[in-house]
């Protein structure tokens, strides 16, 4: 156990050290704190985006999901996320980077200037991201508990305090630096493990054939109604272009073209990692350990039973890296939703930039500790749990953002109607007993689009100044 502890402690101390180093630079201004001064290079940004998306869900959750629901169902969800990146690079990267503010709320309030937009958007972000953070904390907790033997609640508490510490003091710069290291660690561990599996068991196709002979359901499309497959695909494909912690990465890029390249490089790396996991580690795990009670523990089971301590130590560090690299970005986005979007107009203007950044630190701690408390009673199947929360965000923001960016007739009435209808319809169908899991989005998105269309054609046209400003955002 000593080697595992040394590796994990070295990793955690490194993260805090980076936060402290970054804090010297970022606490001087809001631009530095929220978007790292808008000068992150293309490759560094790509690695940071990959790490931000590759959460605990992308290591622990993806394998648990594939183990429990089959590989096709899992790939439908993750292919949606990957597809979202080319969509983001075409639909939002250039105009939002040219817009040059901090958050997605800034854009929506500019396009649809109304108090309801100002307050409802950050509330939706905070609710969705808190659920997302809780799922990440479960991934950290069960990993540390399973592989290091520390009690679940203590594992959650320790990892939470450490990542809140470096996010709150280091802002976006600390997140970017740590994300690059964490992304590299995740890729090495997952792809390295997959290569070892291939060396032992054969090619991914041979492994799949062997696994499907033992457990045919692993490769079948039979676990859920088709609406559930389609819903999980649509949630993530539509979420990525509007999800705040990814959009903030667009704002950190040096220019719009660099932002677009970063998004696509990130997704190639992410896809390689997910495919390596589901085509090698999951099938081998399903053959050797077919009856796990908690499917999310399949990667940990494989690590514990089949690899030496040094690899197990790296695996714990990699899962913590995955959790932290997403949670830190979520925490920063959540924190910005409160201190910049909700309080910015009233509080931040009265505070110096430095005092404002100390307020951000306090808010990051409050959100993190609330999520930590809720994570003490963890949900089953984390990927399904946080995907449902991201569905709420998608239902609320996708149509207003896309119509706002691309449709000249999008106006205040349409913006408000599509936002409210998206939220209400999604919540109604998400909690309806007759809807298959993750399928509420298939009704909520068209309803939101319809509301935008009715508002756009029947309401007062948008201000000419706003349309003129939008035209400028689309120029090179």
């Amino acid at each position, binding site marked *: 156990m000593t080697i595992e502890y040394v590796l994990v402690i070295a990793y955690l101390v490194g993260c805090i050290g980076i936060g402290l180093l970054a804090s010297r630079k970022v606490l001087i201004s809001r631009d530095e704190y929220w978007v790292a001064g808008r000068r992150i290079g293309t490759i560094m940004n790509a690695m940071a985006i990959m790490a931000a998306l590759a959460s605990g869900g992308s290591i622990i959750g993806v394998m648990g999901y594939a183990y429990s629901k089959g590989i096709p169902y899992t790939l439908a969800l993750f292919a949606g996320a990957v597809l979202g990146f080319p969509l983001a*690079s075409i639909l939002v990267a250039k105009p939002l980077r040219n817009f040059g503010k901090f958050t997605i709320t800034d854009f929506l309030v500019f396009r649809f200037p109304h108090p309801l937009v100002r307050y409802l958007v950050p509330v939706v972000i905070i609710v969705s991201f808190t659920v997302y953070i809780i799922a990440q904390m479960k991934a950290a907790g069960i990993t540390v508990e399973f592989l290091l033997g520390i009690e679940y609640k203590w594992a959650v508490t320790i990892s939470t305090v450490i990542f809140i510490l470096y996010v709150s003091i280091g802002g976006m710069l600390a997140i970017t630096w740590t994300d690059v290291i964490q992304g590299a660690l995740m890729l090495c561990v997952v792809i390295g493990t997959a290569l070892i599996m291939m060396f032992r068991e054969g090619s991914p196709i041979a492994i799949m054939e062997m696994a499907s002979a033992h457990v045919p359901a692993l490769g079948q499309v039979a676990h859920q109604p088709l609406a559930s497959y389609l819903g999980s695909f649509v949630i993530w494909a539509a979420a990525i272009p509007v999800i705040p912690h990814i959009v903030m990465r667009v704002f950190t890029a040096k220019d719009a073209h660099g932002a677009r390249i970063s998004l696509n490089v990130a997704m190639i790396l992410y896809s390689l990692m997910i495919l390596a996991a589901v085509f090698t580690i999951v099938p081998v795990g399903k053959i050797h350990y077919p009856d796990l009670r908690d499917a999310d523990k399949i990667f940990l089971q494989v690590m514990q039973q089949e690899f030496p301590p040094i690899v197990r130590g790296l695996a714990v560090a990699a899962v913590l890296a995955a959790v932290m690299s997403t949670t830190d970005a979520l925490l920063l986005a959540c924190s910005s939703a409160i201190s910049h979007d909700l309080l910015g107009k009233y509080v931040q203007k009265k505070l110096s930039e430095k005092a404002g950044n100390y307020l951000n630190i306090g808010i990051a701690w409050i959100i993190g500790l609330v999520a930590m408390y809720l994570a003490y009673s963890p949900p089953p199947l984390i990927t399904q749990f946080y995907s449902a929360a991201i569905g709420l965000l998608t239902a609320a923001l996708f149509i207003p953002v896309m119509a706002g960016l691309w449709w000249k007739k999008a106006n205040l009435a349409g913006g408000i109607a599509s936002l409210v209808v998206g939220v209400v319809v999604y919540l109604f169908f998400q909690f309806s007993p007759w809807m298959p899991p993750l399928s509420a989005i298939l009704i909520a998105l068209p309803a939101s689009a319809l509301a935008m269309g009715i508002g756009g054609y029947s309401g007062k046209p948008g201000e000419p100044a706003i349309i003129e400003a939008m035209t400028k955002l689309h120029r090179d």
Partner: protein
Amino acid sequence: MSNFFPMPSGDRWFLLTIIIFSIISFLPWTQKIHVAGMALFGWLMAALMIFSPAIALIRLIRHRVSNRGEQK
């Protein structure tokens, strides 16, 4: 006058292609055919994961190269 802000035609075609590919992937026949132990649907999703960002990246790099050529 169009009601939409202009989008480069290459981007439009790329969007249309990946949307059509996604729709084809979800048609019922892809779920019944099995290749190497998995439904064709799963393989198409895997292909989408690799090819959609790879093609988008190639297009962006070509665009950057041609822009530099024009500037020279």
